[in-house]
């Protein structure tokens, strides 16, 4: 696809984000909605600006798992990243008594939960592992545990869903979004090869979010993005956003930039 088309789409997405930003520097899920960690972090990753003050003061919830990765290129966020790494290393999911008749995966791997006191799931684990690898702690035992968990939770179709690949003996289908994040977290290997193929299915069932994650994950592993970028551009709204949602628009901006530059913040 024409590079100028991609760059224009990216600039329009960034313009949407600039308009949508709150006075306190945060982004909500909707334009000028209550500030939330996920859209604010992805906006920072997209280069729309990072409010370190807001991020330092807000309750980021599970978004904290993404801080080291999303703010990797924000020099003034060094203290935030360090504190987030400590949080990540100290947080673990609750193990669940194995019951192979019910769950097809190893429920004793603690990895990372969405909320403390609950079980581990794919996306928060992917965020945590990605963050640890970003700051050079990819060989930390917790990071290795996270990688083991992700490999264990891969679905039969090559992707990942929220974290149950098989229930009551039935293989469940994967979803592009968690597949994208898991693929970003993994360094490579046969499981990544299978996932990269699965991510191409985003073309058949497109949405802004799925196309963005598919592009980001494939670019991170130097796989061609085929027609995914063109499909993403085609889904952009007249106002430059994607469905009026800031986190989707920010990830799209990241993906459009990745399509041109061959790399992005979430590519380790």
């Amino acid at each position, binding site marked *: 696809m024409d590079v100028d088309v991609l760059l224009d789409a990216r600039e329009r997405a960034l313009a949407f984000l600039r308009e949508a930003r709150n006075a306190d520097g945060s982004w909500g899920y909707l334009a000028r909605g209550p500030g939330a960690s996920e859209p604010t972090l992805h906006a920072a990753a997209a280069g729309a600006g990072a409010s370190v003050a807001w991020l330092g003061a807000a309750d980021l919830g599970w978004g904290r798992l993404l801080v080291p990765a999303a703010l990797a290129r924000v020099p003034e966020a060094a203290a935030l990243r360090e504190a987030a790494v400590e949080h990540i290393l100290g947080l673990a999911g609750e193990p669940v008594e194995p019951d192979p008749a019910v769950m097809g995966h190893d429920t004793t791997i603690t990895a990372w939960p969405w*909320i403390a006191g609950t079980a581990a799931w794919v996306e928060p684990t992917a965020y945590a592992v990605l963050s640890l690898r970003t700051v050079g702690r990819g060989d930390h035992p917790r990071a290795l545990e996270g990688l083991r968990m992700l490999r264990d939770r891969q679905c039969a179709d090559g992707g990942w869903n929220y974290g149950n690949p098989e229930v009551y003996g039935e293989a469940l289908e994967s979803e592009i979004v968690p597949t994208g994040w898991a693929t970003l977290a993994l360094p490579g290997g046969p499981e990544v090869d299978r996932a990269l193929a699965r991510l191409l299915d985003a073309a058949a069932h497109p949405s802004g979010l799925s196309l963005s994650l598919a592009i980001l994950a494939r670019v991170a592993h130097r796989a061609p993005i085929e027609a995914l970028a063109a499909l993403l551009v085609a889904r952009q709204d007249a106002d430059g956003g994607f469905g009026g949602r800031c986190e989707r628009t920010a990830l799209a901006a990241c993906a459009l930039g990745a399509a041109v530059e061959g790399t992005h913040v979430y590519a380790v």
Partner: protein
Amino acid sequence: MSTRSDPPGLSRRALLGGAVALAATATGVLVVDRLWQPYARVCTLRADSYEIDLVDLLLRGIREFPDTVARAKGARVVLKPNLVEYDQSRPINTNPRLVASAAEAFRQLGAAEVVVAEGPGHRRDTELLVGESGLQDVLHAIRAPFVDLNADSFTRVALSANHTGLGTLPVAATVLGADLLVSVAKMKTHHWAGATLSMKNLFGTVPGVAVGWPKNVLHWGGIEQSIVDLWHAVQPRFAIIDGIVGMEGDGPIRGTAVDMRTIVLGEQCPAVDAVAARLMGLDPRRMPYLAVAAGEGGTIAASRIEVVGDVIAPRPFALLEKFEKLRAD
């Protein structure tokens, strides 16, 4: 709606904690039978397919409830369907035609605004799900907005009964701001909860941005306990259960279709669920969340529920073996 009415001779404490373990036993049934429960009315309607005039049928059903008709006038109505997966070969979601018809019905009753809102439990990509499920097309046709509750702002609501021990639960602002919240559920079995009806459907009012995907905190707090806590916290004023095509077996996703040809409606969720459960061949007194709800303002006793509308014969649903204990005798 959720007023507690302790029956003479039995304390609510008798139902806490042990209710889940007790409910599916013969003793549990005896306990529930002794509970005083307020009178409730539920309407069952025959609906041979999704192609009939569902607006007219739903209006007929809603008009059995004069309080709801009055409440709908000038109201902000929020319809909360069950939207889970986009495998259109299985009856997983509340049928989009039924959702759209419910929206039209409430508009005809004079609602100022009708919004369709849902926070899918484990699918991260709501845009894709709404599109692929067919819901986007029907809502676009009737110009009804969809709100993704998973990205909604939220308030941490104090749990009056607090069966989960969580103290509070985050509930979406769109839901809390409704004048009339309608749980528009699907009639299905459920491989963790036994059945998923109008009360289990309320899980989607807890935003994923607060608790993640899946909403594991609700499972960790106890599914049965979470169902009752959310019912109290969210206070739906009406329930519609899409049983035109239900799901049996390994629900709520991998089960098989049941041609039930039924819609169940009512103002009180436990009563609606109890009637639906009986139609599925289950004994609501053995379903822990309903047993607990019966002690907290809900009605599940057949003797206390007036069923109006069309006569519908029960059709026992196939169950996973571990839920056979929920079956009616």
